């Protein structure tokens, strides 16, 4: 686990890692660790509206992408560790280039509780220079199971989650995980 130990703080009762489980045979969460392998389910692509901001424009994209691997950074403008990770994201996005759909997505209710221009202002303040989009009903966050902020997710070209981890990462950590799906 390369990320900051987000869950380090806190009492840990014996039931911490257990869940009542799901319905219809689904089991509970497997936490925020490596998903690894090809056995994870394919995430059905959905449309994410992108925001007019540096490196981004008012448009829409499919996430996960269907023609290439995808990297998603889930953030919120209220989240200091998300701002802290921005320089690493910038470096990582430069290093992996166009081989991957590289996008930051806020789960804030853009259009209801915040405006696109507030997101763009935060983006400028934090030197964002790549695609930034909105997940105003948290549908993508649900599909990719965000378990803290920020959460980084790498999906391979078939739309399977190959890595998902919350916390502040270094550019090297992000690039390593992204390159792992590029090599496949």
């Amino acid at each position, binding site marked *: 686990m390369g990320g900051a130990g*987000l*869950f*380090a*703080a*806190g*009492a*840990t*009762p014996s*039931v*911490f*890692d*257990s*869940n*009542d*489980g*799901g*319905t*219809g045979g*689904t*089991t*509970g*969460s497997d*936490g*925020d660790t490596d998903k690894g392998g090809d056995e994870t389910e394919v995430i059905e692509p959905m449309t994410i509206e992108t925001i007019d901001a540096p490196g981004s424009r008012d448009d829409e994209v499919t996430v996960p992408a269907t023609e290439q691997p995808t990297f998603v950074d889930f953030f*919120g*403008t*209220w*989240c200091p*560790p998300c701002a802290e990770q921005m320089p690493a994201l910038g470096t990582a996005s430069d290093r992996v280039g166009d081989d991957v759909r590289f996008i930051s997505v806020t*789960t*804030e*209710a853009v259009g*209801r*509780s*915040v405006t696109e221009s507030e997101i763009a202002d935060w983006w400028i303040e934090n030197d964002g220079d790549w695609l930034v989009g909105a997940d*105003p*009903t*948290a*549908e993508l*966050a*649900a*599909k990719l*199971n*965000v*378990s*803290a*902020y920020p959460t980084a997710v790498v999906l391979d070209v078939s739309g399977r989650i190959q890595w998902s981890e*919350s*916390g502040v990462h270094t550019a090297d950590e992000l690039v390593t995980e992204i390159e792992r799906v590029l090599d496949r």
Partner: protein
Amino acid sequence: MNRRDSLRSIASAGVVATAGCLGVLGGDRTVLDPPEQDLSAAAHPSHGDELPAIELPDPIAGEEIATEDFNGERAVLLTFFYTNCPDGVCPALVLRLRRAQEVAAEGGYSDDAAFLAATFDPERDTAPVLEDYASQQGVNLETGNWHFLRPESYEAGQTLYEEEFGLVIEKAPADNYENLEYQFPHYGLILLANDRGIVERAYPNGAGVDIETVVNDFEQVVTA
């Protein structure tokens, strides 16, 4: 008759009405089958237990919220949090309730569900702070089905949460976090109860549990 009394009588009427459905549910009090992992020995309520009857102020709406008032009315998703939570667990808990709130709105059953987020930290979590937090976290306060619950004091909350939910909260120094004097180490509990006040699911790892698992369980219960 004040609002609470009228809700109570509606609630009793609801109990009578649902009694007729129990046969359909095989005499069971729950919609969902017992979970794969038996949590009945855990300190918190679990499948088939009654949702503890608590009553706490919603400081934003300026009203008292009693879980019993939802009997016969609404399924309940309940969690415990505080806005200064430094480790990202609380936004993850709130995200799970918020996604269910979105799904309920899309499905047209907002009025059949209640989303309750109870703070450990009433000293800092005042009405304006909670309103800002709702806005940050994308919670919709307009639908009238979301209530932040704020005990009168830290001690009152601590006693209530421990006695009713087996949730032990202690104020601890937050030396490892800048700008934070104290924190409340806790585990992330989410409870799902049906509209008869019976717990359907407990998610003791509520911050990490699959969001779609919680939402699917919730949908099954609320539309049953």
